[in-house]
């Protein structure tokens, strides 16, 4: 059941199975690892971490919506050094690889963070969160533009030999060109998608519900958007893809693999049940056994078209 998220990198980023916890689904992994015992995810991506201490978003921060979760946690972290000091020992003591998600608004900070991780043997890899704002572009998300995405990836790649996953934001209209650029710039793998920008209204309708007004939508509601993203990216690049968005059942895992993902990540569903990733892996194993499939890689990309398609935005006559 093993998969490798960095097959071309010496040492690789080998996972025991294809189901991981996406950023934010397990905080900094410590409490999460304590809670799951042997039903462990194949890896944990931490919540996004910055260079210096931050408070995060103004409360309220979370609200359940029909089929989805709306949230704005922001960057509430004590800064990377403190994170490594507090949680590094627990990571080192665990068999579960921990991948640190980074958020920085300049190439310089990305480089600083990646170099710091390079020195931490308990870190299995890093994920670069392209939903973070780009200081040079007035705070627009890095992942909205090809060039900014490429520069950010280069900055991380140049600073470390650790396996590097780059996480795309679904706000970019054409994910294929971003995917091509970051793969060419040295990403070992691509993960997608992050949450959709969304909003809810407070009960009294005198303001937005979340303290930050805007939040991210995650959970089952966004699964068809995540599948679309993976299906497009898989036709654009050959690096492994971590499919994220609304995964909560074995069918979801199989759908993402069929759309071209090598592994899947879940955040929202892991908050309600930290053992879910581990259980999904067992279910997947049983399913494979029942279908005479020895290697889950046989399931990857089975739904992709034989010929490349034009992508969801270039469809000729209006289709949606």
């Amino acid at each position, binding site marked *: 059941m093993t998969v490798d998220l960095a097959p071309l990198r010496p040492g690789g980023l080998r996972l025991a199975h294809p189901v991981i916890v996406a950023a934010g689904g397990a905080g900094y992994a410590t*409490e999460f690892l*304590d809670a*799951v015992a042997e*039903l462990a995810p194949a890896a944990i991506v931490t919540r996004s971490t910055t260079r210096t201490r931050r408070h995060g978003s103004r*409360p309220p921060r979370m609200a359940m919506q029909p089929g989805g979760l709306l949230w704005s946690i922001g960057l509430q972290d004590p800064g990377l050094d403190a994170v490594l000091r507090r949680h590094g020992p627990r990571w080192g003591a665990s068999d579960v690889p921990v991948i640190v998600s980074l958020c920085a608004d300049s190439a310089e900070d990305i480089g600083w963070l990646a170099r710091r991780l390079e020195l931490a043997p308990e870190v299995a890899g890093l994920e670069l969160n392209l939903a973070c704002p780009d200081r040079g572009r007035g705070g627009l998300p890095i992942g909205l533009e090809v060039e900014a995405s490429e520069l950010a990836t280069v900055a991380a790649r140049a600073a470390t030999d650790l396996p590097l996953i780059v996480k795309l934001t679904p706000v970019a209209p054409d994910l294929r060109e971003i995917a091509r650029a970051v793969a060419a710039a040295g990403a070992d793998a691509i993960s997608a998608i992050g949450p959709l920008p969304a909003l809810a209204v407070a009960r009294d309708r005198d303001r937005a519900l979340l*303290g930050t007004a805007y939040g991210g939508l995650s*959970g089952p509601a966004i699964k068809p958007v995540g599948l679309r993203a993976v299906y497009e990216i898989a036709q654009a690049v050959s690096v492994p893809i971590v499919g994220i968005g609304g995964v909560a059942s074995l069918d979801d895992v199989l759908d993402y693999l069929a759309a071209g993902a090598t592994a899947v990540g879940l955040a929202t569903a892991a*908050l*309600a049940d*930290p053992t879910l990733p581990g259980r999904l892996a067992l279910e997947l194993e049983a399913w494979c056994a029942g279908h005479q499939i020895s290697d889950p890689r046989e399931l990857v990309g089975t739904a992709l078209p034989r010929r490349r398609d034009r992508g969801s935005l270039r469809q000729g006559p209006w289709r949606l």
Partner: protein
Amino acid sequence: MGRQPFGGEVAELIASREVLPGQRLLTWRAPSLARRVQAGQFVHLLAPRPSGLLLPVIPVAGFDRVGGTIVLLVDERSAGAELLRLHDGDQVRLDGPLGRGFSVDARSRHLLVVCDGSGMARVRALLDEAVTGGRQVTLLLGVATAAEVLPSWLLPDEAEYAVATIDGSLGHRGGVHDLVIDYEAWADQCFAAGSWSLLEQLAMLARGRDGRLGVARLGRRPGRRMPRTAARRTSWLQVALPHEAGCALGVCLGCVVEGTAGPLRVCREGPTFAIDELVLERQP
């Protein structure tokens, strides 16, 4: 604070009684929870799997350590409303106790408990605990109108019970904070739960009298900062914040409220807080 491996404990519904229309007091056989829980703590409902994306968080509204039972006060509008559909003998899985309970100072003899309709579930266990511990306790309830007043059978006989209704249809006419003034000299400590605006009003009262009330008088040395737990224990006003759903593991940070010393997680640092720990005017 180590939480057990995910899985929780089986609890069996053994009694259910209507408190108000749409609201019931549910009694569960759950010996291990009953042994460990403290007033102010809560449980997670793990199974039957609730319909929402996150697990509902339900305050423990009472417990009997000897009998091995806990009670939950569940409203059809609150988290865990699915429990109202169950029948005697049905089983669920509950994870807990979670969060930190109220800290009653050992020296406190007189406890004042203040709540509105939504806060009752979060303070009721404290009444039991106080009475068992031989303390005197007064509950002040504030609601809009007589129909929302909770019946007195819900409380231990030893507790004094006073009610304020906004429309004056029962008890004092007006906000419950009006009643607090009558009791503040008597009370060594005050514990509250309810809407943010109720908590804000209480905080204003408490702050105006800062350091002159109850046990707070005893613990403080001028110019010395107390450690957090001691500060909480000796605080005159403690509140239990609402918390509907979340990971309760401390990992999602979705339950965070603004604290005077930085963000605070309701599920871990709370749900009970000394009022001074919170920045009330910037909360929801």
